[in-house]
């Protein structure tokens, strides 16, 4: 296990990434902070559009600029700032120290070269080795990621491999530079459950073996439960809750986290989250979850993003109900009372006259039967609201 008193190998602080589009600026990442320690797995979890992938791509300098731009915040890798690093410097870190595994392995593999050639090229890029030695190393890497008869596979083209094998090869390539940090963006999203289980096992083994720090992106809380040490719950480009994995599933703190867990199939009664993820060109001024939150009160939509509060259990929650003067058991009946405010670095919402008018969503807020799934009323009402917003 990791020791949180260690220095983090990677630290993301109040990151804001914006894309200029014809529809106006899109705040894809809108204030994300987390630390990653050696040997630790941090899972970024959230729905499509939550900003998980853009966060990862920004870490490795993969967002196209323009239109992408880091407008605020910092990313430090072993103390070095990455957001304003020169491409040259980034290149030494990317792949070598921080490696990336993509959702679609075909993004990492070139269809017109054999996997052997690609592995040898990658190894040669990182280190000055002869082709013969690089070839042997490629065989070892393939063997390590569980490819049977690796020597016979070097001559295969990517299309000759199954999806699971392609992802194994992509992982082998990511390991070629012997990285300290592995960023894995939904690497099992395209795979069947039995193959997914194999890949997750492999990642767990590799992590233990090499003391890898892993940033793992997924929308699947089942995977989070199996692989994470720390979970960062993202919504609308920002962090709702940061907690250890046991804490998160045992005592979810943020109303969004709770709603997300309740919406899962296979955990008893499934309760959908009403409404829709907000439009990224027009995020609400207050808490982005406010329009869908069953507990929302007027101050949720006022005075900017809610500040982070640390619960007694050690999770960080961006929700006004965790302020000292509020009763957090309203949103989380099963948790201990009391919190203390933390982190000066996060925007503070204690200024009630804050900027911006209340959004129109706050006017139409009604929490009365949000949780109920019975019958036509809630369905058609949600739908009607959606229709108006579209």
């Amino acid at each position, binding site marked *: 296990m990791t020791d949180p008193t260690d220095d983090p190998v990677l630290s993301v602080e109040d990151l804001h990434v914006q894309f200029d589009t014809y529809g106006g600026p899109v705040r894809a990442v809108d204030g994300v902070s987390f630390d990653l320690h050696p040997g630790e797995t941090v899972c970024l979890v959230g*729905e499509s559009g939550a900003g998980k992938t853009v966060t990862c791509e920004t870490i490795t300098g993969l967002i196209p600029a323009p239109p992408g731009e880091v407008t605020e915040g910092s990313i430090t890798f072993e103390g070095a700032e990455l957001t304003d690093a020169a491409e040259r410097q980034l290149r030494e870190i990317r792949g070598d120290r921080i490696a990336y595994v993509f959702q679609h392995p075909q993004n990492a593999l070139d269809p017109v070269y054999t996997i052997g050639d690609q592995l040898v090229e990658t190894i040669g890029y990182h280190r000055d080795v002869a082709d013969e030695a690089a070839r042997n190393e490629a065989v070892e890497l393939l063997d390590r990621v569980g490819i049977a008869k690796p020597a016979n596979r070097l001559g295969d083209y990517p299309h000759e491999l199954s999806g699971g094998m392609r992802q194994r090869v992509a992982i082998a390539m990511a390991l070629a530079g012997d990285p300290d940090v592995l960023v894995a963006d939904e690497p099992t999203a395209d795979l069947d459950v039995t193959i997914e*289980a194999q890949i997750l096992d492999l990642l767990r083994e590799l992590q233990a073996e090499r003391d890898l720090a892993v940033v793992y992106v997924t929308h699947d809380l089942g995977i989070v439960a199996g692989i994470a040490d720390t979970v960062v719950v993202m919504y609308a480009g920002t962090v709702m809750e940061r907690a250890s994995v046991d804490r998160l599933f045992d005592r979810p703190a943020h109303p969004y986290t709770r709603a997300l867990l309740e919406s899962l199939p296979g955990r008893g009664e499934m309760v959908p989250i*009403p409404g829709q993820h907000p439009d990224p060109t027009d995020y609400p001024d207050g808490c982005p979850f406010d329009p869908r939150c069953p507990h929302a009160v007027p101050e949720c939509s006022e005075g900017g993003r809610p500040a982070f509060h640390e619960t007694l259990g050690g999770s960080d929650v961006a929700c006004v109900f965790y302020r000292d003067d509020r009763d957090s058991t309203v949103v989380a009946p099963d948790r201990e009372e009391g919190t203390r405010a933390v982190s000066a670095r996060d925007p503070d919402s204690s200024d009630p006259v804050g900027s911006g008018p209340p959004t129109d969503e706050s006017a139409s807020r009604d929490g009365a039967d949000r949780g109920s799934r019975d019958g036509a009323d809630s369905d058609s009402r949600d*739908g009607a609201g959606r229709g108006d917003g579209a």
Partner: protein
Amino acid sequence: MTEPAPILSVTDLRKHYRLTEGVVFSREVGRVRAVDGISFDLYPGETLGLVGETGCGKSTAAKTVLRLLEPTAGTVRFDGRDVTAFDGDDLERFRRRAGMVFQDPTSTLDPRMTIGESVGEPLLIHGVTDRSRRRERVETLLERVGLSATAADRYPHELSGGQKQRAALARALVLNPDLLVADEPVNALDASVQAEFLALLEDLTAEFDLSVLFISHDLNVVREVADRTAVMYLGEIVEKGPTDRLFRDPSHPYTQALVASIPEPDPERARRSVGLDGEVPEPSDPPDGCRFHTRCPAVIQPAGMDLEQDEWRSVVAFRRALKADGVDVDELRARREGTGGTDDPEGLRAAVRAEFELPEALSDPDADAALDEATAAVARGDVESGLDRLEDAFSSVCIEDRPELEGVDEDRQVACHLRE
């Protein structure tokens, strides 16, 4: 329980794709057995889940049932009449009573047509030419699936994925069908949107008195919506039964592995590593006997043999690899010489063992002797007699016989030799 007659009854349905060579006088050189003899009944008001991994044939099965694909063999009875024999009016009438929702709503909705036009199109095709009556029906349905009536005037790109899938559902229901076939309808949706869609589907199933054939690779989703579930592997159904019991107490080793592989949103259970080795074999060359035997952790040993299960499975894998691809002894010899190995028969035999990841010695001496003989034959380049020796000494019911789907109790069936 007095069972009513099934609304849909599928018997020994097969869909094979021919692999051919030659253009003018093409001849068959093989077959992809996408669906290879499946049978199931769907009762009125029931939701039947069909689960399995990519390539197991579940989508092909769905399309064949609706005759979007022509079956190779077998019968599909809808309300007692054979769908495979329908043509002309009969087929049109059948299509009116059977709706389908696909994985990708974008493929259902024409980007150049408004949602209203798309949803109303089946009405037009089936003879409702009155514009205002179509409009009325479309608006009612759109509201019923949780969209606003004004969505009728929008284009598909203006809607989110979840909204598009609702519109696709409205289109499937516009003719008031009795049967709905849903092929991975929530695959492309986020978890919270999935939950909404599934809740809606459940409401509508009751309201429209629909019978649903629900196809998904996601076991959690099937567990949520299906009354009964059938598990497919390589074109066959290996187990079917009431959903609750199938998930709580899976009987077939494949179902057990599938259920164990579900990522559980519970850190205590999720960290246990369980799973299946290897990948699904090609449906053009399915394994003999039980199709799952190549990956089955519980594959049955020959009578009287007492090997570690890992050892036994390595022998099974050796036998299959030898049969499928043979072995290039010259290449093996060259590789041995390259690394300074000698050319003696004994060394080569050991190399064959190593190549196929067989243990150096089996725990059963008789079995080990037989394996020695087989590998020695292979090392001599005589793959044929090596295989014969293997088949002789290591004969297992799982490799020789294809298990039939048999009842383990009243309403549960499983195709596995272990349950016999």
